[in-house]
């Protein structure tokens, strides 16, 4: 299964994502932001980092990269697209996902393990989990505070598009467990069609015991399973 790992100037989780994709048996390829065309790929992933230094606004310049037009087309055709951290920010900037990621409430960068509750175990990306399961996954961001108007938030909830929520280790979505001030503790959402997922936490950093957690494996395996089911 061929997976395109997009790289923008300033991406810095591209290699980690590449390795995570490889670990579950898929076949990753780095695709530079100025390249064109995504045919032949079965999934596209957008890594974390600081594209263009985040100097203007996270993702604001990366969304203008030539490859993004192809990503939009790929997503419209139902192809799975996963954006993590800066990747999530870019997906919001380009309009594939609603809302925006703004400065953390603390106004500081925040790097630590958080707990996530899996809200939906029936998306392309989460079939390997069970709904309500609590994962331990690292975050590392300065702009991860998910914001949208109340109407959008209500619609996301009603349509079951909140996939991950920040919780404590027992799965309670408390204020203390919210690391960045995100509305309704939202950590990850999908688009209406369910084929585009954006999330701030880093499942690709939770793939091995030696790194502290293996809870991220499920996400990449789910993607693999969904795709091999669809093609074969």
């Amino acid at each position, binding site marked *: 299964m061929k997976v395109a790992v997009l790289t923008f100037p300033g991406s*810095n989780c591209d290699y980690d994502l590449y*390795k995570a994709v490889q670990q579950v048996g898929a076949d990753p390829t780095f695709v530079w932001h100025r390249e064109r065309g995504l045919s032949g790929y079965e999934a596209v992933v957008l890594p974390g980092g600081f594209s263009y230094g985040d100097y203007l606004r996270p993702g604001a310049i990366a969304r203008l990269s030539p490859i993004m037009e192809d990503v939009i087309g790929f997503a419209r055709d139902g192809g799975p697209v996963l954006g993590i951290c800066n990747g999530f920010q870019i997906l919001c900037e380009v309009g594939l996902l609603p809302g925006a990621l703004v400065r953390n409430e603390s106004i*500081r*960068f925040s790097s630590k393990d958080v707990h996530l509750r899996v809200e939906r175990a029936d998306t392309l990306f989460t079939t390997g989990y069970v709904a309500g399961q609590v994962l331990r996954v690292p975050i590392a961001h300065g702009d991860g505070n998910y914001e949208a108007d109340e109407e959008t938030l209500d619609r996301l909830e009603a349509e079951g598009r909140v996939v991950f929520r920040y919780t404590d280790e027992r799965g309670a979505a408390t204020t203390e467990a919210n690391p960045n001030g995100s509305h309704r503790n939202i950590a990850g959402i999908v688009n209406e069609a369910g084929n585009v997922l954006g999330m701030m936490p880093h499942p690709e950093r939770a793939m091995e015991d030696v790194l502290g957690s293996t809870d991220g494996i499920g996400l990449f395996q789910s993607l693999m399973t969904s795709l091999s089911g669809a093609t074969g």
Partner: protein
Amino acid sequence: MSRVEDAVTGTVVPPRADDPAITPELVAEHGLSEEEYERVCRVMGREPTFTELGVFSAMWSEHCGYKNSKRLLRLLPTEAPWVMQGPGENAGVIEVGDGYALAFKIESHNHPSAVEPYQGAATGVGGILRDIFTMGARPVAVLDSLRFGDLDSPRVRYLFGGVVRGVGDYGNCVGIPNIGGEVVFDRGYEGNPIVNAMCLGLMKKEELITASASGVGNSLMAVGARTGRDGIHGATFASEELSDDADESSRPRVQVGDPFTEKLLLEASLELIKSGAITGIQDMGAAGITSSASEMAGRAGNGVEIEMALVPVREEGMTPYEILLSESQERMLVVAEKGREDEVRRILEKWELEAAEIGRVTDDGRFRVLEGGAVVADIPALPLTDGCPTYEREGIEGEEVQALRAVDLSEHLIPEGDLTKSLLMLLGSPNVASKRWVYEQYDSTVRTGTAVRPGGDAGVIRIRGSKKAIAATTDCNGRFVYLEPRTGAKIAVAEAARNLVCVGAVPTAITNNLNFGNPLKPHIYFQLRESVLGMAEACALFETPVTGGNVSLFNETDGRAIYPTPVIGMVGIIEDVDKLVRHAFRAVGDDIVVMGTNEGEMGGSEYLYVTADLVAGAPPRVDLEAERALQQAVLRMIHETVLRSAHDCSEGGLACALAESALGSNGEAPLGVDVELDDELRPVEALFSESQGRIVVSCAPEHTDEVLRIAGLYDVPARRIGSVTAAQAGFRIRTRDGSVDAQLDDLSDAFFGALPRIMDAPAASGT
């Protein structure tokens, strides 16, 4: 120096139209003494031009020329079979095994950080990253060693907050995990914060490249950011004392960092090195083009010729003097093989960066600078880089310190309140308290290699595709060094080694950062000399050669020097990452064993600082042979997988070490402790003494005999002092006369809450 002076030819260079005349005042402003200036004239065979004076001023500053420290640095052991590159290059390199090499180095950015903490610290990280990737290694980890005055000062809180944000923003953006370091608060650093950053980079052995301008006729190319007017004379600035008004007047000498460009430069540089189109690459760091070009020429025994009109600049009208001495960040000097310049340009273009041919390698041994074809500087390269005069100064111990060492401490050793209160006070002291507030601002998990994150004894990065891992730590207790420099320096090396051993790493090599006051003062030179001697002795015994580092002198404000602070950045190798051990207790019922002996020493302890506001007494003694035996014993235990945890006993003594293991650092569920200490000591000494050579381990009860047996094999005193209990049972330590009995919630609140309470209070946002 006769060989150097033979090179004199004395070419005539007419002064530029707008250049000021060379007067004794101008020479003095450039930080050169009369004798040094005479030496410049001798080397040149004539008086230098203004441009040449600027060049000498930078290259013969302490920062570039090590004039006050070079003779001492020669005393340090630098060799071992595993050392691939010792001092003198951008970074030291050691062999790791499995075909890998590790480049690593520490560097200071003290002066800029005192003036502009955010940019000062950020560019410090940028500079050390470049030193690593110019060796051909990919940076895989950063550590930061920081020191500030006491946090009750708003100015100190401003500096601390700014430095942490600067270190974080830069490393986070480039995507290099921060895996540890240290943060110390003591009035000894008021006015002169210490900001040292260390970087580690991994490469395949054959990817090692050095910074030399070889191949006559090859092109010199300026790569990366353009040259601007920022940071001019930073190297000279870093080699003088700060005055009270340094803030305002010195700000233009501080550079501004751009981590995004750095990230592109990193990727482009590694690609360049892989392409084989270049023969050498060096950061334009301190003293910019001047130092990179002349040092690369010097190493190859060649000359260089540079045309100022070809250097990409940010603004019109820059003089050669400014271009040569600019310390604009994120720039590299590359030596491209003749005919392959376009290949270099193409790689840079892919990363949206510039590359410009600015000169060439010559065979005449001259550092020659042209401006529109006219020669504006023509200096023999070797005397410029290697001819800096070096001095051995007079060193006499200060009387004040002798008096402090003799202070009778006994009146301070009876706690005013109860022992539990003392422990809570110590855990809440910013020096002992968790640095979570700091390291949560640093990305510690990017690159998916971090096996031990900040907050432990040492950070650990595993090597993908190998069983091996690299551990690193930075250490120095400046109070100990202040009170008795030679002992303090030995302790710094010993503690660094102990920290590595606690995660299961064999201590392998050192990079050091010598942060001191003004060496022209006899009591400061005494500190410097004694520290180097202590370090040399310890490094020899631990077989941890020094492969490079940095010297930062003149850390004084209004004549008051910092504590002498020779920071040790030590790296070690873990053979099997699956066997690594962390400092947190793991299971209820495990036995707790202390190895080493508590001598009850309280001199220079955190207890005295916190309870009596006192830095006095003699520092703890250090027995290097015993240290080594202890370390070998613990490594053996970890190798035999009989330990559940291991933790060094340092600031705050045994009681704090136990509390740290009980509380963990990375969200572990806290565990209780039930311990009995039967030392024939005062309770305060039993709990809070900072006697050296002690490690607290825990093990499953069925392994306790084996742990004690191994300790015996190495003649290391070891005894079981108690066990790990459930959190509800609390934290209990009984001594012969008094006890500690605390709830874990209270310990946790003191330990984790201290820094946030200080830094997140509304008034703390600063000045």
